[in-house]
């Protein structure tokens, strides 16, 4: 072994290596955080050690920017993942200090690796948000769409063209309405015109009457003022004057009433005209125009009359003023006179004889005084004449101005009215011209339309004719086919009936024939049966070792008796030739023959194709001599391979033969092989022949029996 000193060297070296390794690991972990994480993951308690050595795995602020960039993305993904998954994020976030502005490097890097490893999930993460946004947008659109559709349910209905009938109906309706309205309007206009005309005429008449009355009154007044007539006549005059005044007032009142009435009616007429103007129906316009003209004329007349009346009134006013002044002066004088001479009565002209000189002097003095006064007043008046005249002129000017203004206004209005009416008339004329033009154009269009319509009608006529002809021909065809069908049906029915009758007749005939046939059949069946019996009897004629007689005759008889029966014929011809020519052996003879065969077959049991030398013969003879088997043994239902031994087969066969089962014996014997088979070949043939013949005869007799039974008629 190593010297003791080197052991310590080894130990020291080992320790150095280990410590160096650990120190290197720690340093490298300090530098590379991924490495630190890997170490902590893989080596237990290393996190404690590294924590002790380096402090916890805190994010160093002096990190390279690359790392921060790397971490910038993962946190967002981490957030999303944390939101979506929720399980891992909180678990991981809880352990490091979450209050830190960014996660620790290790956690971040671990999660980054986690995320990068689960990179497949990342595309799916923003997708839900997008789909959400998309869904929201869609929802908004949906809402808008719904609103839009809700708002516009009605306008989405397409505006259809009103059908022509509707339009025509509406037009007709409109026309009707227009006509009605125009009629009504014209009626109303006429009414109002008539009433207003009447009223205006009345007013004018009244105004004239008033004028006349005023003029009369004025004249009378003038006369009364100026004329020097007898007192009775004066009083008459005054009475007349009063009457005239009363007349005048009444006439004026009447005139005023009439005027107001006329104004009312005119106003109503104007309103009606305005209404009818407002209706905007063309046919009414000329009426309106005429009514307006009438109105205007009436207004003009009325105004003229009113003006005349007014002028007459103003004149009358002047005259009445004058008369009032005169009366006033008279009264004054009267008063003075009466104050002077109280006894004197009013009518001083008739008192010439009664007055005394004093009175007369007083009167003359008063008269003189009055004359002086009047002269003075006259002088004053003359002085003030100018002023008065100016004032009067002014007044007159004002009045004139007023009157002029009124006149001008009225004239202006009349002229305006005239102009408007002219314009309206011109407008109406123009409209008529336009109407005429339009009518000509429409007429032209109508003509063109009628031409087109004619052409179209012609074409349609052709088409309709063709259609109608087609329809007619098809209907005719239909009718024809139906007729044919019916006749065919009738024929068919008749034929059917005939057929049924015929069939019945046939049936009856057939029944009779079948009876005959049945009897014939019965006879034949009997014959067949007899011949078959003869055949089977002839089979029994076999004696020991001598076959039966040839079956030819019997078979011939059978064939004769069943000439038209294919089955029996087939069977009869199925008899083997040899049996017909030579006859068959009976079972007993075959049995006897078999017994002699048996020993021979036993002796050559060993001989076959491969073993056929003399020595084999010797052996076979020896075997036959030494082997003992049951002389008769019941064969099993199924032959196994060991039953194919010739000795066994022969015992089975003799058992069968003893029990009368030639068929099974033949089958068993058929299993022999080799020389034994060659030896029993002829016996087998004979057995087959016998079996065949017997089978055919059995069949024939069964058939004959069956036929016989079949033809037997029940009583």
């Amino acid at each position, binding site marked *: 072994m190593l010297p003791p000193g080197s052991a310590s060297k080894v130990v020291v070296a080992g320790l150095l290596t280990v410590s160096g390794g650990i120190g290197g690991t720690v340093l490298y972990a300090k530098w590379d955080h991924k490495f630190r994480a890997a170490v902590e993951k893989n080596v237990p308690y290393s996190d404690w050690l590294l924590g002790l050595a380096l402090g916890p795995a805190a994010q160093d602020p002096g990190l390279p920017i690359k790392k921060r960039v790397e971490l910038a993305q993962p946190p967002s993904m981490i957030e999303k993942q944390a939101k979506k998954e929720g399980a891992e994020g909180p678990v991981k976030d809880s352990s490091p200090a979450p209050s830190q502005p960014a996660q620790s490097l290790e956690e971040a890097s671990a999660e980054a690796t986690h995320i990068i490893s689960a990179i497949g999930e990342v595309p799916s993460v923003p997708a839900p948000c997008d789909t959400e946004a998309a869904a929201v947008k869609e929802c908004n659109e949906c809402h808008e769409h719904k609103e839009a559709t809700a708002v516009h349910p009605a306008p989405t209905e397409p505006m259809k063209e009103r059908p022509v009938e509707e339009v025509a109906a509406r037009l007709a309706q409109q026309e009707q309405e227009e006509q009605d309205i125009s009629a009504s309007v014209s009626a109303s206009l006429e009414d109002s015109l008539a009433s207003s005309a009447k009223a205006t005429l009345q007013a004018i008449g009244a105004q004239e009457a008033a004028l006349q009355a005023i003029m009369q009154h004025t004249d009378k007044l003038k006369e009364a003022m100026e004329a020097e007539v007898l007192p009775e006549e004066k009083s008459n005059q005054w009475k007349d004057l009063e009457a005239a005044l009363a007349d005048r007032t009444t006439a004026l009142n009447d005139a005023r009433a009439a005027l107001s009435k006329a104004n009312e009616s005119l106003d109503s007429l104007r309103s009606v005209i305005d209404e009818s103007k407002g209706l905007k129906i063309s046919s009414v316009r000329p009426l309106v125009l005429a009514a307006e003209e009438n109105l205007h004329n009436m207004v003009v007349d009325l105004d003229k009359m009113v003006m005349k009346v007014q002028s007459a009134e103003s004149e009358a006013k002047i005259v009445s003023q004058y008369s009032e002044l005169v009366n006033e002066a008279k009264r004054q004088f009267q008063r003075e006179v009466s104050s002077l001479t109280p006894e004197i009565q009013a009518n001083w002209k008739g008192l010439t004889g009664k007055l005394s000189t004093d009175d007369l002097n007083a009167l003359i003095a008063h008269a003189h005084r009055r004359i002086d006064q009047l002269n003075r007043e006259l002088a004053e008046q003359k002085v003030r004449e100018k002023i008065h005249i100016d004032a009067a002129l002014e007044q007159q000017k004002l009045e004139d101005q007023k009157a002029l203004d009124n006149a001008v206004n009225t004239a202006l209005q009349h002229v305006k009215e005239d102009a408007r009416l002219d314009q309206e008339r011109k407008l109406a004329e123009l409209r008529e011209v336009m109407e005429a033009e339009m009518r000509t154009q429409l007429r032209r269009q109508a003509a063109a339309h009628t031409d087109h319509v004619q052409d179209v009608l012609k074409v349609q006529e052709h088409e309709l004719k063709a259609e109608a002809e087609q329809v007619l021909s098809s209907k005719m065809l239909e009718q024809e086919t139906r007729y044919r069908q019916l006749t065919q049906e009738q024929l068919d029915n008749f034929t059917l009936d005939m057929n049924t009758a015929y069939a019945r007749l046939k049936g009856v005939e057939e029944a009779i024939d079948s009876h005959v046939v049945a009897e014939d059949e019965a006879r034949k069946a009997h014959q067949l049966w007899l011949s078959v019996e003869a055949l089977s009897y002839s089979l029994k004629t076999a004696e020991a070792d001598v076959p039966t007689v040839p079956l030819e005759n019997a078979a011939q008889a059978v064939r004769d008796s069943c000439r038209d029966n294919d089955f029996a014929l087939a069977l009869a011809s199925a008899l083997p030739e040899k049996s017909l020519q030579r006859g068959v052996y009976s079972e007993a003879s075959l049995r006897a023959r078999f017994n002699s065969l048996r020993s*021979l077959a036993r002796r050559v049991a060993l001989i076959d*194709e491969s073993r056929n*030398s003399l020595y084999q013969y010797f052996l076979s003879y020896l075997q036959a001599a030494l082997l003992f088997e049951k002389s008769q043994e019941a064969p099993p239902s199924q032959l196994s391979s060991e039953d194919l031994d010739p000795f066994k087969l022969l015992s089975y066969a003799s058992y069968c033969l003893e029990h009368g089962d030639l068929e099974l014996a033949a089958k068993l014997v058929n299993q022999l092989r080799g*020389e034994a088979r060659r030896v*029993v070949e*002829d016996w087998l043939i004979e057995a087959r022949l016998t079996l065949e013949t017997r089978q055919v005869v059995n069949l024939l007799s069964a058939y004959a029996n069956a036929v016989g039974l079949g033809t037997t008629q029940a009583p």
Partner: protein
Amino acid sequence: MFSMSEKELGKKWDRCLADGAIKLGTGLGLGIVFSVLFFKRHTWPISLGSGAGLGMAYANCQNNLRSHYMLHRGDKVGLSMEKID
């Protein structure tokens, strides 16, 4: 006529025996003749002759009995072409 296959064997045996007897006798005779004439009364030509005779008879008998199983030169054999898978 009624052919009986079982009798054939008996016939064959008859022929066999007859033939054997003849051949034996003839062989014997010739053997004796030769032995006497040419071979100084040795017994071996007799036994040879009889042996030969017997042998010939045996062979003949065997051949006769076998003849059914042997193919003869003039026979035509049918070939069936079977599909060989």
